[in-house]
């Protein structure tokens, strides 16, 4: 760029010669120069604005284009990140405490038909009846030739049946995938597991929902995909459950009982190692509940009835130990205090008598338990008073439904007298006038066994357990355990002795109530509540037999000592080794030396 001088000499001289003002020339040149500068700067700023606008345009176009693609394209799962194992669609498995499968899923197929697509409905019906003999040919033909567009034929079919149906070659017969709940162990622990069935059904999938037991109680947990298929671990041990069920079944048959229940519980954690109720059912093929049509049958006759939890009955003399413990806790008596049980006892017009109108005379508290004296515990209950008695039974959990985690536990609410007066207080002291389930009894006996801490029965495997609140003093618990041991060694439960396991326990025989009031003479509920080994108990075992009768003698025997106790002893003998418990050496026998001599220097 050439710079124009403001006062070019030639023009100045020329202007002077003409007599013009030379300053005008300078002014003009200056103006031209300023114009030029202004033009240049405007051009530059316009250029900058243009570039800036370009940038903005690019930015907006990018955002706009992204929005357009997002709105126009199909949504897609991000493929780049691996889903891993965080989401599982199947219902979670149920395992026992050692990880063995109690319930799992199996893929199967459902068979459905779309009649309007059928080529030869009659042939299809014929072939289907041949594969599934339980189908009715006339019904199928009516369905296939009618106006229906869709119908289910079978909800679950096996792979072989699927192939056979496939071989018919009928385009109107179609399959939908199904997830089926399988209980590989059949009847084992049926009442705990409950069962499952289909909820909402579609062609491509169906909901599996729990209908009873833990399947229903933990339905949300089992179905929740966010758990990543984590299994539900129960406290039940498959081996022990099987042994208990088997022995109990044998015992039930041998004692001619119509039902039986057994509970084996860890006394420190409250874990239920085994809970059996007979008769039982197969959860793979759950029977229907009793309805109005089954006249003359009680709900307790159904195999679905869980006696261990729903069987709320008077448990009889097993309650006596609670009265003795409370009396000792309150300092009213000690195990050696003598109480006169020979004096006739009459409360509010009712005579309190002993079993078969015996008269035991003067007995120590310990002997009252061993001989199972009604009047003895009645006298203690009178000293305790009904309010304190209620309080104590409540802390033991005997007045509320059991917290066991199966839906049937809602049916375990104990029956207590409306007016808990003097008479109720006396009868409840020996277990009459209050109805509880065996599960309640197991938890209360576990408190005695573990040294006086409350126990919450649970069916889930516990990894860490807080010790419960203290409900009785350690001394009373220990004294009670001694008494229970004596019941077996010299009292009513002498058949309960299992060599090496120091069983302690209390029998209970209660008459069954009639549906319309009063009691049966020849129908009883026999209970044996036991713990072993009684010097440091680890497990509590409750055995209940419904309407047992022992007929080996000349007269039928119906006391717990003759029925429930031998069954419990057999269970302990069978189960204790499985629990890894070594028998104590009660007799010292010389061991045959086998060539080993211990020497010391």
């Amino acid at each position, binding site marked *: 760029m050439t710079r124009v001088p403001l006062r070019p000499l030639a023009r100045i001289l020329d202007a002077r010669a003409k007599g013009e003002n030379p300053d005008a020339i300078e002014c003009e040149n200056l103006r031209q120069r300023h114009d030029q500068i202004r033009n240049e700067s405007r051009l530059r700023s316009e250029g900058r604005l243009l570039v800036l606008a370009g940038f903005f345009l690019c930015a907006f176009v990018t955002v706009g284009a992204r929005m357009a693609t997002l709105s126009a394209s199909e949504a897609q799962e991000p493929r780049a990140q691996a889903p891993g194992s965080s989401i599982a669609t199947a219902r979670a498995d149920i395992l026992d405490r050692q990880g*063995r*499968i109690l319930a799992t899923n199996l*893929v199967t197929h459902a068979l459905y038909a779309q009649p309007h697509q059928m080529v030869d409905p009659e042939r299809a019906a014929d072939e289907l009846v041949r594969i599934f003999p339980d189908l009715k040919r006339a019904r199928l033909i009516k369905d296939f030739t009618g106006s229906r567009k869709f119908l289910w034929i079978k909800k679950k079919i096996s792979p072989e049946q699927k192939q056979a149906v496939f071989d018919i070659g009928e385009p109107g017969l179609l399959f939908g995938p199904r997830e089926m709940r399988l209980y590989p162990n059949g009847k084992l622990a049926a009442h705990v597991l409950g069962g499952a069935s289909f909820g909402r059904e579609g062609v491509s999938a169906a909901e599996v929902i729990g209908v009873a037991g833990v399947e229903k109680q933990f339905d949300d947990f089992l179905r929740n995909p966010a758990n990543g298929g984590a299994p539900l671990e129960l406290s039940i041990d498959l081996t022990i459950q099987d042994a208990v069920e088997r022995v109990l079944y044998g015992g039930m048959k041998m004692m001619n009982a119509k039902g039986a229940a057994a509970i084996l519980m860890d006394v420190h954690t409250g874990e239920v190692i085994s809970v059996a109720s007979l008769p039982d059912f197969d959860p793979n093929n759950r029977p229907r509940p009793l309805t109005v049509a089954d006249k003359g049958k009680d709900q307790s006759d159904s195999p679905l009835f869980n006696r261990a939890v729903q069987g709320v009955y008077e448990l009889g003399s097993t309650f006596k130990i609670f009265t003795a413990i409370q009396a000792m806790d309150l300092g009213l008596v000690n195990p050696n205090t003598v109480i006169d049980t020979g004096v006739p006892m009459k409360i509010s017009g009712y005579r309190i008598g002993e079993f078969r109108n015996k008269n035991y005379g003067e007995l120590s508290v310990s002997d009252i338990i061993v001989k199972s004296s009604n009047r003895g515990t009645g006298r203690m209950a009178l000293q305790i008073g009904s309010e304190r008695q209620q309080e104590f039974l409540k802390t033991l959990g005997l007045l509320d439904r059991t917290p066991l985690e199966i839906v049937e536990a809602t049916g375990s609410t104990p029956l207590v007298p409306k007016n808990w007066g003097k008479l109720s207080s006396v009868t409840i002291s020996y277990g009459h006038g209050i109805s509880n389930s065996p599960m309640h009894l197991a938890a209360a006996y576990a408190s005695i066994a573990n040294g006086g801490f409350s126990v919450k029965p649970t069916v889930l495997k516990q990894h860490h357990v807080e010790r419960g609140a203290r409900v009785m003093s350690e001394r009373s618990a220990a004294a009670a355990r001694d008494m229970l041991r004596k019941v077996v060694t010299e009292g009513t439960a002498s058949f309960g002795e299992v060599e090496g*396991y120091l069983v302690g326990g209390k029998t209970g025989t209660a008459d069954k109530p009639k549906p319309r009031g009063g009691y049966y003479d020849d129908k009883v509920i026999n209970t044996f509540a036991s713990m072993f080994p009684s010097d440091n108990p680890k497990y509590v075992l409750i055995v209940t037999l419904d309407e047992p009768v022992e007929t080996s003698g000349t007269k039928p025997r119906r006391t717990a000592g003759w029925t429930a106790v031998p069954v419990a002893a057999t269970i302990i003998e069978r189960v*204790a080794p499985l629990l890894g418990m070594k*028998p104590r050496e009660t007799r010292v026998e010389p*061991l045959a030396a086998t*060539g080993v001599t*211990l020497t010391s220097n």
Partner: protein
Amino acid sequence: MRSLLYILSALAVMGLAYWAYSENYKTQASLDRSHALQGEIGRMQEELAVLRAEWAYLNRPDRLRDLARMNYDKLELNVLEPGQFGRVDQIAFADDDELPEITGAVDVIGDLEE
């Protein structure tokens, strides 16, 4: 000097573009592979579930009891009893001089080829 810089940077851009292009295709291929693998994992998990169910079914206590009874002659399996617990000193040591004779030994001496 400046033109050399331009040429070099242009070459670098082309090279990087080619690299990005090939990486993109490799990524796509890997995604396809992982997709296929996940499908396979799903199928195998299903298979595994069936096998576990079958294992549990074959090991159900009823069947094991029947098997134990059927094979009683050979195995003589009985239920566990309290009397089967013992003490360590009830177990006899094996006598030193009565070790069973070694039979059917195989000669394993040979040459190792380098």
